[in-house]
Every structure is written in structure tokens, then in C-alpha cells.
């Protein structure tokens, strides 16, 4: 379990993410769905590339800026490499097929009461919980 302080920090971090989504939608008319922003770079139309790259650069810059003060936030998973590769492929294919990930469906979609996003979130939470729990029984927990 976690402490009250940790819960409040998580909530506060979440508010930053929600604010980011509000800013991008208000001023650029874009949904802050990360899989959509990144996936849209492939076969992108003219003039639709730079804002995506700059958004990703902003995320990377935030990671770099906090890397030395919060090293524990960048822990990596100690699991066989083939599971990491398989995981990446499934996340890449699944988010494009389902038109969104945790941010697009979870944050932006749920916030506007989208039926599609509600179904998507219930589905990926369900298969995510099932997968993590089964794999945890086979390979052991990660915490």
C-alpha cells in the first residue's frame, strides 16, 4: 500500500497530465493521446509532423530534467528481454488498432464521457490486470 503523501503526489501528478490535455485541446484543438500523437508520425500528412515531434520532445525534456533528482522514477523492469519486445509490439499494434491508449481513451475520452473510450478502458484494464496477474504468478512479482 502507499502513504497519504504518496497518494496526494500521484493525484497532483495526474492533475498536471489533465492540465496538459486541457491546454492542448483548448489552444491547438488536439487530443493529448500519446499513442495517437506518436502513431500519427507514420505516413503523416504535410504540416502535421512538427507539433507532434515538439510534444514528444517536451515529454523527453521533462524526463531528462527530472532524471537526476528522481532516479527511482526510472526503474526498469527486470524481466526477460523477449517479454519486453513482445510487450512493446502489442502496445504499438493495440493502441493503433484501438485508436488510443491510457491517455487518449483513459484521460481525454473518459473526461468527455465517450462510450467508445469507456469500453476501451474497461477492456485494456481487464486484459492488463489478467496479464499482469498471470505473469506475476509465473515469473514472480516486480514490487
Amino acid at each position, binding site marked *: 500500500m502507499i502513504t497519504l503523501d504518496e*497518494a496526494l503526489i*500521484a493525484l*497532483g501528478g*495526474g*492533475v498536471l*497530465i*489533465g*492540465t*496538459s490535455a*486541457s*491546454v*492542448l*485541446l483548448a*489552444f*491547438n484543438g*488536439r*487530443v493529448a493521446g*500519446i*499513442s495517437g500523437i*506518436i502513431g500519427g508520425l507514420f505516413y503523416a500528412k504535410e504540416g502535421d509532423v512538427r507539433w507532434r515531434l*515538439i510534444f514528444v*520532445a*517536451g*515529454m*523527453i525534456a521533462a*524526463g531528462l530534467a*527530472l532524471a537526476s533528482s528522481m*532516479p*527511482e522514477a526510472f526503474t526498469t*523492469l527486470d524481466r526477460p528481454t523477449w517479454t519486453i519486445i513482445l*510487450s*512493446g*509490439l*502489442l*502496445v*504499438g*499494434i*493495440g*493502441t*493503433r*488498432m*484501438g*485508436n488510443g491508449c491510457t*491517455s487518449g481513451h483513459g484521460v481525454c475520452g*473518459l*473526461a468527455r464521457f465517450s*462510450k467508445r473510450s469507456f*469500453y476501451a478502458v474497461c*477492456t485494456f*484494464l481487464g*486484459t*492488463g490486470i489478467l*496479464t*499482469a*496477474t498471470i505473469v*506475476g504468478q509465473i515469473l*514472480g*512479482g*516486480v*514490487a
Partner: protein
Amino acid sequence: MSESKTLGVSLISGILFGTGLVISGMTDPTKVIGFLDLLNGWDPTLAFVLAGATGSHMLARPLLVKKFPENVASGVEKKVEVDRQLMMGAAIFGIGWGLGGYCPGPAVTATIPALGSTLIFVIAMLAGMFAFKWNQNRME
């Protein structure tokens, strides 16, 4: 709006998003799996992050709709029906998420500080995104 303003908004939004992910602990895949794995000491952090993110955006939306109606209308997905592709995609994404503990945002934010398996994940994810798009274009 000029292009430089659009890009400035993208940069600020990306920095806010990445900062939120790091502060809330979502760039640590062990915390994400700690939430999804119900049988190895449950970690509820992810629920608070989602509550903060979705909740704050939900509360801001009425104001956004009022002040920026055109941008809000143009931004959101037009499709409304729940179809096979949506459900299949979400199911596949969930399996990958539960296996590796990364969704796209945290993985990209953590790539350079974490390197190692995170970089491998991101390369595989980009390959998966490209493969899907390539196949989709081929079918059309």
C-alpha cells in the same frame, strides 16, 4: 493561430504531461504492474493518477467548451460506435501493458534516463505502430 504559437503550446503541453508522469510514478513500470498484478502486494498509485488526470480534465471541459468551442469540437474523435476493431485493439494493448508495465507516454518520457529495456520497449512499440499503419495502408 500562427505555427510558432501552435508549436509553443505543443511544447508546454508535452513538458506538463511528461512532468506529471514522472512525479506520479508512472514512468516506473514496477508501479504500474504493482497496480495491475492483484496477487503480489497491490499498489493503488495508478488509480490516483488516473483520478487526478481524468478528473481535472473533466472539470476543465465545460470551461473549454465555452471558451474554445471550435478547437474542442475539432479535436475529439468523430466515431461513436463501439466496434470489433476498438475492442480487439484495446484488448491487445492491455496484454502488452500488463506484460511490460509501460503505456506509450511513460515509455517515451523514460527512454533516455532509463535506457536498457525501456529503449528496447520503445523501439518495439514504434515497430508495432508502423506495422499496423503499413498493413492498414496496404489493405486500402
